[in-house]
């Protein structure tokens, strides 16, 4: 299994670098930065899995833990 995974991405070589004048960045670092930006945007636009539940819950009156405990009594 380890050999299969290691075969997917061969990291056993010199790093690749990009140059724009005085700016130099490794491809690995650029990929990480792009992934962070993509993750950030997705976190803003993707719906959260609990939103539908919380909106449904909002239609009911708020119940505090103490009220819950009191309500359980006959």
């Amino acid at each position, binding site marked *: 299994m380890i050999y299969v995974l290691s075969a997917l991405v061969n990291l056993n070589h010199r790093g690749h670098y990009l140059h724009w004048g005085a700016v130099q960045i490794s491809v690995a670092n650029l990929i990480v930065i792009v992934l962070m930006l993509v993750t950030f945007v997705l976190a803003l636009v*993707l719906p959260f899995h609990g939103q539908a539940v919380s909106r449904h819950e909002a239609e009911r009156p*708020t119940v505090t833990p*103490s009220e819950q405990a009191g309500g359980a009594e006959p």
Partner: protein
Amino acid sequence: MTTTASEADVAVSPDDRPTWTGRFRARAVGSFPPERLLPDRQPAYVASWIYVFGALTLAAFAVVLLSGAVLAIEGPAWYHSSSVGLYFNSMHLWGTELFFFFMVVHLWGKFFMAAWRGRRRATWITGVLAFVISIANAFTGYLSQQNFDSEWIGTQAKDGINSTGAGAFWNVLNFGQMLLWHVLLLPLVVAVVVGIHVLLVRRRGVVPPFSRPEPALASTRALPAGDIGFADDTTTTEISSPDGSAAAVGTAAGGGGPTVTGPSPTGNPEDGEGR
């Protein structure tokens, strides 16, 4: 008329208690009541992916600490040669990568929310400190790899460190010093700062998103007994601006729910005062 212990606690000011332990307990419970320290509800606006990355950073930090502890138990001869050791070594590396990945996304989210609003300046500053000290911690880790990479990093970094004057007592070419800073001093400082950061988040609450101005200051009223102060979709927080006018914060990030006036999401009457 007899007085119960709880009534006596209320009657006695924290500063009037005879022992420092009593004063500390009174102040700790006053600042961090259990229902605020370990809440069982959260504000509706937290139901967004952008609010997840702080917890993800903590989870990655736990993986880094645990994998680092395993590396320390067995030692370099083990984690440089055996397959299991290499596995934990890689887990430690990739846990660090994810730690910074999540922390940077968390930082971006909080920056664009202006997360220092609502008397959360200390929360923001401790987050910045945690970020900077974590960089130093990771740096000493890269110096401790015992390979050509760490040798290259050390020889390149020494000139920069020496130019600041710090090289007189913090020598990046001193492997033993860097390793001990990496495994003891800096993780301890990061853990303490992160702990304070999390406590401040509990104290001041999660920063709400921006919304339109509202006139009332509902968050300044005291909450009824038994109310843990966390809202659901029917509530929002109102905070005051520096000029004294009120501004309501409702939903924004992640497309949250509707906005209706209600109590503070933190249950802290002080939260709405100033930014």
